């Protein structure tokens, strides 16, 4: 059940209605049942995996809290971490690692048919953060298995985040308050904004990008335009998902953290990462960067911690060297900014504009690594970028007809309005009316031809 399907909206409406009607004491059970049903719609057998993660981390949390000695606490924490890491290693990285070792040994690896559970990287990280917070004494271990299970499996953020912390989400799930009128307004605005980003912008850009990446020898201008379009596609795809998640939670009276804050307006690469997938950045900062020394133990340590974070971030995104290189590319850029003490300039003018342009130019090629199927394709397309450009041939390869191109351009111009909505600002009623009209029309366009595009981050 994808967030961008009408079926999800019916499911959400039913859950919100029953949630309002049922007694506060049993709301957690309703949400947990709804969340497990939501997940089972993807794959019923793989629901067992998430149940396993819940039982393991809940049990280890209690054992850590009950342990008298530091060694025992560490032992149970290590057991939970090994369980989470082992799960990711098997489902996500086994074929990748086996293939890498086989290549080093000069052989070949026949990949095993392992089905990756949807949202595996997200819920294991969320569960790991709970165990680490209990181990550090930041939060008390949750004794109620139902509340804890709901914290991990809460359907709006189950399959692609935002990665929430127990200290923020668990108290809200326990309180199970009814959404206020203002919460409902904000929730609806976020759901509409998210659906618009996904259906009207991301899905309209996707076929053009796919065409260029499927071409044998595309024109340089086509590769450049496809990269620009992919930058907007992936942003609107993931930010759209995050907004639908946030909006769905708002309708249930629960506040999730923002995951995006206009990342392409950043004037440094570090600034970009403070605005892009903010919940993952915060996770890596708290559980990897700071424990490795952060910025308090000298420049060398800071460089090492930064590179470690971006190496792991790349690997988290996908089991392929393209993702690892994508992470390292961003890591190198951040390290250069640290060494050159480059900071975001505030205000307007030539210098901040130049900073913004330089950041955009540095980030754009990294999307090639993210989107390409393998390193061979990366090198081919990168080479094509510097070949002769024939803009007319490029535009024809993208396959964006006159009306479609105009629709995409008009939709991209709405991004400032969508940002207002995602910040919870009030807008005239007609904005909601025309947003809804655009979403329905985009659904009809999808039904008439191209078919649904899954959210990109579901694969992680």
């Amino acid at each position: 059940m994808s967030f961008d399907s009408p079926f999800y909206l019916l499911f959400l409406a039913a859950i919100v209605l029953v949630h309002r009607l049922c007694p506060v004491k049993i709301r957690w059970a309703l949400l947990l049942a709804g969340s497990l049903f939501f997940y089972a719609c993807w794959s019923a057998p793989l629901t067992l995996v998430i149940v396993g993660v819940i039982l393991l981390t809940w049990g280890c949390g209690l054992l850590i809290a009950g342990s008298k000695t530091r060694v025992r606490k560490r032992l149970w924490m290590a057991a939970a971490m090994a369980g989470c890491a082992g799960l990711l290693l098997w489902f996500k990285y086994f074929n990748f690692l086996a293939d890498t070792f086989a290549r080093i040994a000069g052989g070949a690896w026949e990949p095993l048919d392992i089905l990756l559970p949807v949202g595996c990287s997200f819920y294991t990280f969320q569960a790991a953060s709970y165990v680490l917070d209990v181990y550090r004494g930041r939060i008390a271990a949750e004794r109620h298995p139902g509340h804890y299970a709901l914290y991990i499996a809460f359907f709006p953020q189950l399959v692609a985040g935002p990665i929430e912390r127990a200290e923020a989400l668990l108290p809200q799930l326990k309180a199970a308050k009814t959404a206020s009128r203002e919460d409902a307004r904000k929730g609806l605005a976020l759901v509409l904004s998210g659906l618009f980003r996904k259906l009207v912008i991301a899905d309209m850009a996707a076929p053009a990008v796919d065409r260029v990446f499927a071409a044998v020898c595309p024109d340089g201008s086509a590769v450049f335009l496809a990269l620009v379009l992919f930058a907007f596609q992936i942003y609107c795809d993931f930010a759209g998902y995050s907004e639908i998640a946030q909006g769905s939670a708002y309708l249930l009276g629960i506040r999730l953290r923002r995951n995006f804050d206009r990342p392409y307006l950043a004037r440094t690469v570090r600034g970009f990462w403070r605005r892009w997938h903010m919940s993952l950045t915060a996770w890596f900062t708290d559980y990897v960067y700071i424990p490795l020394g952060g910025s308090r133990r000298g420049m060398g340590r800071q460089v090492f911690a930064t590179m470690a974070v971006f190496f792991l971030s790349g690997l988290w995104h996908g089991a392929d060297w393209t993702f690892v290189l994508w992470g390292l590319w961003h890591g190198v850029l951040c390290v250069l900014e640290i060494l050159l003490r480059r900071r975001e300039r505030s205000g307007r003018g030539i210098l901040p504009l130049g900073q913004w342009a330089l950041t955009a130019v540095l980030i754009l090629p990294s999307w090639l690594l993210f989107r390409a199927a393998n390193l061979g394709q990366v090198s081919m397309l990168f080479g094509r970028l510097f070949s002769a450009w024939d803009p007319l041939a490029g535009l024809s390869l993208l396959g964006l007809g006159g009306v479609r191109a105009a629709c995409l351009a008009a939709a991209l111009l709405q991004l400032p309005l969508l940002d207002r909505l995602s910040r919870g600002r009030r807008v005239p009623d007609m904005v909601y009316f025309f947003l809804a009209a655009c979403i329905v029309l985009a659904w009809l366009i999808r039904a008439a031809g191209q078919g649904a595009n899954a959210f990109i981050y579901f694969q992680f």
Partner: protein
Amino acid sequence: MLTAAAIALGILALALETLGAWKRSSRLSWLGGLCFIAFMACMLLLDRPWEQMLLPALVLLGVSGWRARREAP
């Protein structure tokens, strides 16, 4: 005939929406919305592609967004 009606309704919707945004009048904006619905009905009867209806909807959304910016504190 139907094509002419669709064009007229589309222009009327845009004009009312723009006027509504300019004067900050919800009534004019809603009238624009009604004209847009009538425009959609005509386009449906004409069996036009959905993209040709999406573009005017996006333009009208842009006009409403302009009003939102005007009304921002």
